[in-house]
C-alpha cells in the first residue's frame, strides 16, 4: 500500500466529502471530519510502526511518473525527520478537529473542510520527495489558512489576512523562481534529464555562486514562513486575529514548514551556499531569540506572549540546523516536535483563560484559586515552554546549544540571554494570570471534559519525551546525518576533518 500517498488522500477526501453534504448538514460534517482525521491519525501510527528507525533516506516511498519530460515525479516518503512532523500534524489536527467538532464551531462544514485541507497539504509537504511537489504543497497549505484567518478571524481579520497574503506571496514567488532555477541549473550540470527529486538534487555540484543564490532564495521563503526575525511582521497580526485554534495550528505545525524546508531542501541541496550564509542565519536567529524574548516579556495579550516566545523558540531550532552538527541537528528535530506540542498546549490554555472574558494580560489575576487543575497543568506547560531542565523542551534546547557551542560559541552565548528571559516572560504569563489578588472568575477557566481530552494527551506526550527522549531522537540520527554532512564537510574542509570528526 502506498502509505504516504494515502495519508495525503484521506484528509483530502474528508474535505471533499463536505461538498456532498446538504447545506445544513452540520452533524454529518462533524462526523465526516472527525472520522477522516481519526483515520489519518491511525494510519500515521501504522506508518511509524513500519518505519525503520535505523535507516537513512526516504522510506515507504511511493513514486510515480508524473511528467517525465520535465522531470516531475510524484515521489512521497518519510525519513527520520519527516516522520515526526507527520505524526505531529496528524495528532494536532485530530485534536483540533475533534475539539472544534464537539466544543465549538461556526459554519462547521466549511471550517472543518478547510482544516482537513490544511492537514492534507501539510502532510503532503512533509512527505514530498520531489521539489515541485514540495512547492505545490507549500502553496496549497496557505490557501486554507488564508481562508481560516480571513473568514473566522476577529474584527482585524481583513488587514491581518492581507498582510499574511502579501508576505507569503513574496516568499512563494521567490521560492518558485528558486525551484525552477534549481531544476534548470541541475540539468545543466548533470547533462542528463530534468529532475526535481530532492535526493538526486543533493548530489548535484552547483557552483558556489549558484549554490549561494539558490540557498538564499529558499532560505528567504523559509524565513518568512517560520517566521525568522525580521520577517515576522505578519505574525502578531495574524496570530491575534485568527481564531485561537487556528493560531495554535499555525504556530505548532505550519511554522515547522520553514525549519523543515531548511533541513530537507536548503542545507543538503546547497551545502556551499548554506555554509556561506551561515553567519547571516545565525545572526538573525540570535537576534530573533533576544528580540522575541524581550517583546514577549512586554506583550499585552496572552496570545502575543506565546506568539513572540514562538519567534524566540524557532530561532533556537534554526541555530540547531545551521550548526551542521549532528547533536544540534538531532536536537533541532526533537525541538520541532517539542515546540509543536508545547505551543499547542499553551494556546489551548490561553483559550481556556480567555473564557474569563479577555485575553488582555492586565484584566484578570489570581485565577488559580478558582481553577486548581488548570493551575497545575498550566504550570507544567509553562515550565516546558521556558525549557526548564527536566522538561521535554530542555532536551532539545540543551543539545542544540551544545552543538552550537562547539561550532559557533558566540551564538550559543548570546542565545543564553533567551534562556533567562524565557523564564521571565513565561513566569509573567503564569503568575499574572494564576496568582495574586483574585480578579475574575477562575471557575470559568477551569478544565472541562473537552479541554481535558484535548490538552492532557499533549501534556502526557511531553512527559513521555522528557523521560525518554530517545524514543524520538533515536530515529533521527541517519537522516540528520545525511542532511547536514555535505554542509559540514564544506564548513570543515578535509584538512580539518581529522581534527573535528563528526560526532
Amino acid at each position: 500500500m502506498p502509505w504516504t500517498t494515502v495519508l495525503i488522500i484521506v484528509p483530502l477526501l474528508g474535505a471533499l466529502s463536505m461538498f456532498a453534504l446538504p447545506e445544513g448538514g452540520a452533524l454529518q460534517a462533524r462526523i465526516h471530519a472527525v472520522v477522516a482525521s481519526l483515520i489519518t491519525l491511525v494510519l500515521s501510527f501504522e506508518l511509524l510502526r513500519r518505519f525503520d528507525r535505523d535507516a537513512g533516506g526516504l522510506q515507504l516511498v511511493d513514486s510515480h511518473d508524473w511528467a517525465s519530460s520535465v522531470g516531475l515525479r510524484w515521489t512521497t516518503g518519510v525519513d527520520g525527520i519527516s516522520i515526526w512532523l507527520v505524526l505531529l500534524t496528524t495528532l494536532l489536527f485530530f485534536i483540533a478537529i475533534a475539539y472544534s467538532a464537539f466544543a465549538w464551531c461556526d459554519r462547521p462544514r466549511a471550517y472543518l473542510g478547510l482544516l482537513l485541507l490544511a492537514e492534507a497539504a501539510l502532510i503532503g509537504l512533509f512527505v514530498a520527495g520531489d521539489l515541485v511537489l514540495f512547492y505545490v504543497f507549500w502553496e496549497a497549505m496557505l490557501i486554507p489558512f488564508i481562508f481560516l484567518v480571513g473568514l473566522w478571524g476577529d474584527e482585524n481579520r481583513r488587514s491581518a489576512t492581507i498582510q499574511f497574503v502579501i508576505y507569503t506571496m513574496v516568499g512563494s514567488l521567490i521560492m518558485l523562481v528558486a525551484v525552477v532555477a534549481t531544476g534548470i541549473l541541475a540539468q545543466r550540470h548533470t547533462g542528463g534529464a530534468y529532475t526535481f527529486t530532492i535526493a538526486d538534487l543533493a548530489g548535484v555540484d552547483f557552483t558556489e555562486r549558484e549554490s549561494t543564490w539558490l540557498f538564499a532564495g529558499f532560505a528567504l521563503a523559509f524565513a518568512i514562513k517560520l517566521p525568522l526575525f525580521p520577517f515576522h511582521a505578519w505574525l502578531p497580526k495574524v496570530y491575534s486575529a485568527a481564531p485561537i485554534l487556528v493560531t495554535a495550528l499555525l504556530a505548532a505545525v505550519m511554522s515547522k514548514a520553514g525549519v523543515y524546508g531548511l533541513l530537507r531542501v536548503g542545507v543538503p541541496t546547497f551545502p556551499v551556499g548554506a555554509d556561506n550564509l551561515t553567519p547571516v542565519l545565525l545572526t538573525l536567529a540570535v537576534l530573533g531569540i533576544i528580540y522575541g524574548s524581550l517583546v514577549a516579556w512586554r506583550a499585552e495579550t496572552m496570545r502575543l506572549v506565546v506568539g513572540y516566545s514562538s519567534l524566540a523558540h524557532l530561532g533556537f531550532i534554526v541555530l540547531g540546523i545551521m550548526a551542521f552538527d549532528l547533536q544540534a541537528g538531532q536536537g533541532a528535530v526533537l525541538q520541532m516536535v517539542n515546540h509543536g506540542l508545547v505551543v499547542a498546549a499553551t494556546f489551548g490554555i490561553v483559550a481556556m483563560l480567555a473564557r474569563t472574558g479577555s485575553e488582555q494580560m492586565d484584566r484578570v489575576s489570581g485565577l488559580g484559586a478558582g481553577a486548581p487543575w488548570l493551575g497545575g497543568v498550566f504550570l507544567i506547560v509553562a515550565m516546558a515552554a521556558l525549557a526548564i531542565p527536566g522538561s521535554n523542551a530542555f532536551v532539545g534546547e540543551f543539545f542544540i546549544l551544545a552543538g552550537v557551542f562547539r561550532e559557533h560559541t558566540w551564538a550559543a552565548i548570546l542565545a543564553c540571554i533567551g534562556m533567562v528571559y524565557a523564564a521571565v516572560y513565561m513566569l509573567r504569563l503564569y503568575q499574572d494570570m494564576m496568582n495574586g489578588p483574585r480578579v475574575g472568575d477562575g471557575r470559568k477557566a477551569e478544565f472541562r471534559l473537552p479541554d481535558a481530552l484535548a490538552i492532557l494527551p499533549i501534556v502526557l506526550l511531553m512527559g513521555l519525551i522528557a523521560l525518554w527522549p530517545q524514543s524520538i531522537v533515536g530515529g533521527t540520527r541517519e537522516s540528520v546525518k545525511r542532511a547536514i554532512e555535505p554542509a559540514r564537510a564544506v564548513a570543515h574542509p578535509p584538512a580539518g576533518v581529522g581534527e573535528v570528526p563528526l560526532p
Partner: protein
Amino acid sequence: MTASVLGWLVLGLPLLGALVLSLWPSEPPQTVTRVIGCGSMLLAFILTLATWGTLLGENPEERTHVSSLWRWIEIGDLRVDLAIRIDQLSVLMMLVITGVGFLIHLYSTEYMAHDVGYRRFFAQMNFFVFSMLLLVEAGNFVFLIIGWALVGLASYLLIGFYDDRPSAVAAARKAFVINVIGDVGLVFAAFILLAKTGTLDFDQVFASAPKTLDGYAAEAVALLLFVGAAAKSAQVPLHTWLPDAMEGPTPVSALIHAATMVTAGVYLIVRCNVLYELAPSASNVVAIVGAITLLLAATIATVQVDIKRVLAWSTVSQIGYMIMGAGLHAYSSSMFHFLTHAFFKALLFLGAGIVIHALLGEQSLDRMGGLGKHLRGVMLMMAIGCMAIAGVPGLSGFFSKDAILAHAWSAGALGKCLWVVGIVAAALTAFYMFRLFFRTFMGPDREGGYEHLHMPGWAMTVPVAILTVGAAIVGWIEIPGVWDAMTTWLDPVVAGGPLGPAEVTHSAEWITGIASTLVAAGGIVVAWQIFGRDPKRRLELAGVARGPRSVLRDAYRFDDIFEGTVIEPTKQIGEVFLTKVEPRGAQGLVDGASSLVRVISGVISRLEGGLVRGYTAAMVGGVVVLGLIATVLLRAN
C-alpha cells in the same frame, strides 16, 4: 537489597508521595495528607539509613554504586542513561535531606494545620525532597542539572505558597529567575565538558578531565559551575533572592532555604572537586567570593528586625564559610560544616517558627521580647542553637567552623586574609545571634503583653528537640587530634587532586580554636551589653550610626543596583521594540505595497460576500484542474 536498589527506592518514595497527593481528586482529609506526606519521608529516611549501613559494610574504596534504569538518549556520540550514583558523598547528603526533611515534615503537620492548601503544601514539599535527592544521587551532569532545576522549581512554588500575596509572588519570581541564571552557568559548563571530554558521565568526565581539559578550559568550567553554585547557594552577587524567599512558610525556610537546597552549591563543588583541582585561579575566586559573602551577610544580619530575615542572612553568611572552605580545597571540612549547619539552622528556623506560630504570624523583633517566661522549653533549645552557630566550644558549630578556618590559616597569604575575614564574621555571628535571642526571649514583655499565646504541640516540639540534640553533639564526629570520622568517610571521593587541602598543623588548630572562642565570647558579651542586660540601652543607642545602619538594613542596596542596571533598561528596550519597532515594521511594508493592498482587499471583501461553499469549491476545483492540465500537457509533450 543492594545500595543502588535502595537508592532508587529512596528517590521514588517522595516522588510517589507528591504524585498521590497532587492527583488526589479533591482535598483529602488532613490525616491522609499527613500519613502520605510524612510516611513517605520516614520510609525514605529508614531506607537511607539502610543504604548507609550497606556502604559501611563495604571496603571504603568500593563504596561507589552506579545504576541506570534506561538509556535516556543517544545523540551524536553521546550516550546518557537515567542513572544514579550512590557513594559516600551522596549518602551523606541523602541522610541530611531525608532525616532533617522528615523532622520538618512532621513539624509542618502542625504548623500548617490552619492554612488552606494543606495538601498542596505537602505535595510540594515531597516534590522538593524528590528533586533534591535527584540532585545528589544523579550519576551524570544531565540529571544533576535536572535535579538542580527542579529544586529551583520546588523552591519557587513554596516561596510563592501564599499565592494571593503579591510580595510572595514577586519573591518567588525573583528566586526562579536568579536560579535560571545559575542553570545557564551549569549548562555551559556541561557544554565545555562535552566538547572536551565527549561525555557527561561523572566517572568518565573526572577520569578524562586531567588529560583533556587544558588550563583555560578547566578554569572556565570551574567558574561556570560556580555561577550555578553561587545562584543556588546565594553567594554575592546572586544572593538577593534568599532573604526575599522568607515569604514562604517557615518550615520551607528551614528545609529548603537553610538545611538542604541552598547548600547544593557546596555539594556541586565537592562533587566536581577533580575539576577544581585543575583550576587554581577559579578555586581562589570561589574562596574569595565565599569570604566576601560571609562578611557582607554577617554585617547585614546585625541590623535586621524580621526574625526570619536575621536567620536568612545568617544562612547566606554560613554558606559563605562552606564555599570558602570548598575554594580552599578543604572539601571534607565544608561538608562537615554543611552537616552541622543543617542541624543548628533547621533548629533555629523551627524554633523561630514556634515563636511566630505562638504570636499568630508576628515576625518582627520589635513586637517580641520577654518570651522566655512563656516559652521556656523553646528558649532553652534556641539557646543551644545560638551557641552552636556562634561557635561556643563543645557544640557543633565550633568544630566545623574551626575546621574550615584552620585550613584557611594554613593556606598561605590568601588563606590568612580569609582567616581574618572568617574570624571577624564569627564575632559578628555571635553578636547577631544573641541579639536575636535576647530581643526575643529576654527583657520585659512587649508593649501590650501577650494574650492567647498559641502553644506548640508535640509534633512541633519533638523535631526541634531532636535537632537540638544534633546541634549539640554532631560536631563530635570530628575532633582535631582525637578522631576524624568525616574526613575518613569522604576521603575516597574527595582526595587525590594535585592541589588538595593545605596541611593543617596543630598550631593552626590551636590558634583558630582560641581566636574563635574569644571572638564568640566577645560577640555574645557585646550583645548582652546592648540587648540583654538592660533593654533600654538599645533604645538609647538607636541614634548611633544611622547612615551605615540604613545601608545595612537595605542590604547594601544590591536590589536597587540590579533594578537600575539590568531589569529596568531591558524592560524599556522591550517596550520600545513592542510599541515603536513592531507597528512601524509592519506598517512600513503595508504602506510600501499600498496599491496591492487595495486590490487584494477589494477581492477579499467581494469573496466574503459570497458563499463559503462557492469559493472553497472554486479553490479546490482550481487546484485540481490546474494539476490535471499540467499533467496532461506535460505528458503530451
